[in-house]
C-alpha cells in the first residue's frame, strides 16, 4: 500500500552555493590547491622544463572546466603551429603565403563562428525565412574568443615579418594555453611574449609585484564587483517600468562598477599570475571611467581587444589612409565586430555600433567641441554615454533595454525617488564611495605618497595587501554569488 508520507528531510536554511563550472581564479580550489601546487612544481623544476610544467598545468586548468572542448583548443593550437612553421619556409611565394594566412584565419574563424554564432545565425534565419533548422545547442568552449584571436595575431605577425615562427611546439602551446590569460585575456600578442617564452627571470621584486597585482585583482573581483553586483541583480530583476528614476540610475551605475571591477580585477589577477612566472603581459585597463570622451574611453577599456581590432582589422582595411568614406566604413565595420565579439546577440551588435557612431561624431567635430568645454562637461558627457551603452550591453532583449532607458530618463511616469531607493543608496553608500575612489587615476598621487612615506609606506602596503587577501578569502568562503561576467567568451 502506498504510504502518503513522504520522506522527511532536514529543512536547511543556508543558501546553496552557486558553484562555478570552471576553475576561476577567485575560487578556493584555485587559490589553495591549484596555485600552491603549480608554484611548487614550477620553482622546483629546472629551467629547461619550466615551459612544459606551465603547459601541462595549464592544460589541467583548462580541462577542469572544459574536459571535452580542450580538444578544440588543441586542434587550433596544432594547426596554427603548423601554419606558422609553413609560413617561414623560404620556398613559398607571395600568393602561397597569403593562402596560408587565409587558411589559418579560416580555421580559427570557423571554430569561433560555429561554436559561438551558429545558433544566433540559425535563430535569425528561422525567424526571417520561417525555416525550422534545428539549433546546435552547443555550449560555448571557454576562452575560445581569446585564444582564436591570439592565434590569428600570431600568424599575421609572422606574415608581416614582425615576429618569427616558434619552432618549439611546447613553447608555442605554452603561449596559447598559458592559464593566466587563456580564459579571459588580456589578449597577448605573440611578439610581446616571444622573448619571454625563451628566457625570463623572476626576481624578488618581480614576484612581489605579481603578488600585489594578484591580490588587488582578487579584491576587486570578490569585494567590489561581487558586492555591487548584488545591487544590480536586485534592481534589474524588477520590472523596469516600476523603477523610480533614481533607482534606474543607481542600478546601471552598479552594473558599470560591477563589470569594470569584475573584468579589470580578472585582468589584474592574470597579469599578477603572469609576473609570478616571469611573464609581463600588457595592461588591459587604464582607469576607463576617468575618460573625457568616448574616444578616450576606448583607449582605456579592454585595451588588448581594441588594439587587436586596430592592428588586425582597421589598419589592414586601410584605416584612415584611404579617404573619409572608407574611414567611416572601416570604423563601422570594426565596431560592429567589436560588439558582436562580446556576444552572439543583437544587443551586443547594437552596443558596438552605438560606440562606432559616437566615435565618428567625435572625430568629425565632437572632440573639438569637447576640447573647448570645461572639464566637468567632458566627464559628464562621457559618463552618461558610457552608462547608456551599458544598458544596451546588460539586457539581451532589446525591449527590456529600451524599457530601462525610458525609466532612466523619467519617461515611465515613475517618481524620482522612493523609500526603497533610499534603502539601496545608504546601505551601499560606503561601497559606492570606495568604488568611485578605486576608479580614479590616483597612480601619480600614490607614487608621490610612496616616495614621501618611504619605508613606512612599504610596510603599510604589506599590511594592506594582507588585509585585502584575508578579507577576500572570507567573502569567498561565504560566497553564494560569484559569477564572472565575461565568461560568455
Amino acid at each position, binding site marked *: 500500500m502506498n504510504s502518503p508520507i513522504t520522506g522527511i528531510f532536514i529543512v536547511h536554511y543556508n543558501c546553496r552555493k552557486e558553484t562555478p563550472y570552471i576553475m576561476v581564479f577567485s575560487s578556493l580550489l584555485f587559490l589553495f590547491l591549484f596555485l600552491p601546487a603549480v608554484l611548487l612544481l614550477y620553482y622546483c623544476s629546472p629551467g629547461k622544463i619550466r615551459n612544459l610544467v606551465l603547459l601541462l598545468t595549464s592544460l589541467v586548468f583548462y580541462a577542469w572546466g572544459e574536459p571535452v572542448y580542450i580538444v578544440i583548443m588543441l586542434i587550433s593550437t596544432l594547426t596554427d603551429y603548423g601554419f606558422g612553421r609553413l609560413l617561414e619556409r623560404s620556398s613559398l611565394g607571395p600568393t602561397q603565403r597569403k593562402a596560408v594566412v587565409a587558411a589559418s584565419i579560416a580555421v580559427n574563424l570557423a571554430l569561433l563562428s560555429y561554436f559561438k554564432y551558429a545558433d544566433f545565425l540559425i535563430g535569425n534565419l528561422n525567424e526571417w525565412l520561417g525555416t525550422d533548422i534545428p539549433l546546435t545547442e552547443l555550449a560555448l568552449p571557454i576562452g575560445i574568443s581569446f585564444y582564436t584571436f591570439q592565434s590569428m595575431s600570431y600568424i599575421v605577425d609572422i606574415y608581416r615579418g614582425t615576429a618569427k615562427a616558434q619552432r618549439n611546439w611546447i613553447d608555442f602551446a605554452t603561449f596559447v594555453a598559458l592559464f593566466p590569460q587563456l580564459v579571459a585575456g588580456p589578449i597577448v600578442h605573440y611578439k610581446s611574449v616571444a622573448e619571454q617564452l625563451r628566457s625570463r627571470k623572476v626576481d624578488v621584486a618581480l*614576484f612581489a609585484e605579481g603578488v600585489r597585482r594578484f591580490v588587488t585583482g582578487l579584491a576587486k573581483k570578490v569585494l567590489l564587483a561581487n558586492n555591487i553586483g548584488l545591487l544590480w541583480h536586485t534592481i534589474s530583476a524588477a520590472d523596469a517600468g516600476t523603477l523610480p528614476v533614481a533607482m534606474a540610475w543607481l542600478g546601471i551605475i552598479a552594473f558599470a562598477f560591477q563589470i569594470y571591477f569584475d573584468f579589470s580585477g580578472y585582468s589584474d589577477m592574470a597579469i599578477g599570475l603572469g609576473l609570478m612566472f616571469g611573464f609581463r603581459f600588457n595592461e588591459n585597463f587604464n582607469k576607463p571611467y576617468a575618460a573625457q570622451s568616448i574616444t578616450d574611453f576606448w583607449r582605456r577599456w579592454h585595451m588588448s581587444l581594441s588594439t587587436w581590432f586596430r592592428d588586425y582589422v582597421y589598419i589592414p582595411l586601410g584605416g584612415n589612409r584611404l579617404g573619409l568614406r572608407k574611414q567611416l566604413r572601416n570604423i563601422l565595420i570594426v565596431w560592429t565586430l567589436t560588439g558582436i565579439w562580446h556576444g552572439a546577440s543583437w544587443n551586443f551588435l547594437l552596443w558596438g555600433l552605438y560606440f562606432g557612431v559616437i566615435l565618428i561624431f567625435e572625430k568629425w567635430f565632437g572632440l573639438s567641441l569637447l576640447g573647448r568645454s570645461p572639464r566637468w562637461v567632458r566627464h559628464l558627457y562621457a559618463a552618461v554615454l558610457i552608462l547608456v551603452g551599458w544598458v544596451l550591453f546588460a539586457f539581451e532583449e532589446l525591449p527590456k533595454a529600451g524599457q530601462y532607458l525610458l525609466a532612466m530618463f523619467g519617461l515611465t511616469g515613475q517618481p524620482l525617488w522612493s523609500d526603497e531607493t*533610499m534603502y539601496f543608496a545608504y546601505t551601499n553608500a*560606503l561601497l559606492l564611495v570606495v568604488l568611485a575612489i578605486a576608479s580614479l587615476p590616483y597612480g601619480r598621487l600614490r607614487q608621490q605618497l610612496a616616495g614621501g612615506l618611504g619605508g613606512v609606506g612599504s610596510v603599510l602596503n604589506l599590511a594592506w595587501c594582507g588585509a585585502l587577501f584575508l578579507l577576500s578569502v572570507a567573502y569567498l568562503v561565504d560566497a553564494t554569488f560569484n559569477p564572472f561576467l565575461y565568461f560568455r567568451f
Partner: protein
Amino acid sequence: MKRITDRLLIGSFAATLFLLSGAFLARPVESFSELENRYLQKMPRLTWDNLLSKKFADEAESFVTDHFPLRADWIGVKSAAERLRLQQENNSIYKGKDGYLFEKFPEPNYEKVKSYVEAVKRLAEKHPDANISFLLAPTSIGMYPERLPWKAPNYPQEKVNEYVGSLLGDSADYLNGFDFLRPHAAESIYYRTDHHWTTLGAYYAYVAYAEQMGWTAAGLDEFQIENVSDTFLGSFHTRGQFGGLKPDVIQKFTSLHPVDSKMHVVDDNTDYDSLYAEQFLAKKDQYPYFLGGVHALSTITSKLDADQADLDKLLIVKDSYAHSLIPFLTKHVAEIHVIDIRFYNGSIAGYMEENGIDNSLLLFNTATFADNGAILKLAR
C-alpha cells in the same frame, strides 16, 4: 626597506597559501554541519563520466568550500565586514533593532494566495458538517515593522491576513493572528533570532482558539514556566550569520495539573512519552525541542477523564508554528492528530473521514501560507 617588505610579502603570501592548503588536506571529512544545519558536500568521485560532465569539477569546488579550515570564522568576518559597510541585511535576513533579526517578506503573488485560500474552502466543502478553524499567524517581521532598518523595503503582512480573511468568508472560522497577538506585542511573543513565535506567543494563540471553540482556556497562573534554554540562536542567525547577538530563551509551560500525554509518530512508527525532545537543546537548532521536530503524521493521546475533555478528536494541519502550541491543547483534546502539509501527501478530508474526526484546525504562518505550494494539497 622595499626589498625586505617584498620578501615578507612573498613569504606571507606563500605561507598563507601553503598553510591553509595543508590545513584543508589534513582535516577529516565531515558530513554534516551543525552550524548550517545541512549536509556537507561529500568527496567527489573521479570517474570519466563525472569528469566529462563537469560534475567532478562542480563537486570538488563545493567540497573545498564546505570543508575549508576555520569556515565559521571566515563567515563571521564577512558578516562583520558587511555590517561595517552599513549593510543591513545578509542572505535575505535583516538585522533589526533591539537584537531582532527578520526574514524578508516580499509582496506575495496574490494569484497563488487566492488559490491557497480556495484549497482551504474546498476542504471545508468536502466536510460540510465538520468544524474547521483557520489560524493564520504573522511572522515577526509582520508584527514589528518598526524595528526594521531605516527605509528597509517591506510588505505589510496585515494586508495578506486581511485578504485571506475576506476571501475565506464563512467557509471556516478564521483567526487572524494580528487580532490576538497585537495586544501583547510588547511582550516576548516572537524569537529574535528564529522564525517561530515563542511559547508565550503560542499561548496567546491557544487562548484565542480556546475562546473560539467555547473552552475555558487555562490562565497563565495555571502554569509553571521554566526557561529550558537560554542559548538559542535560531534559523535567522544561521542564515544571516550576524555576530554579537543575544541568544533567545526557550520556555516550557508545564501545567500545574499535568496531563499524561503520549506521542506516536506514524512516519517511523515510534512512540514517545513526552512531547518535549530534550536532546535538541544541545544542538544548534533547538526548536525541534517541541514535538521532536517535523513529522508528516503523528498522533498525541492524552489521558483525560470523560468530563475533562472538551473534544475527543482534533486534526491539526500545520507548519512548524503549531509545535509549541500543541502542548496547550492536550488539556482539552483526548486525541490530537497532527499532519504537516509539507510532507503529507494523502487526502486530508479522507483522513478525517477514516478517523471520524469532525474538528480541524489549520495553523499556518503568513510567510509559509503566502508562498508554499504544498498548501494546495489541502484540497485533495
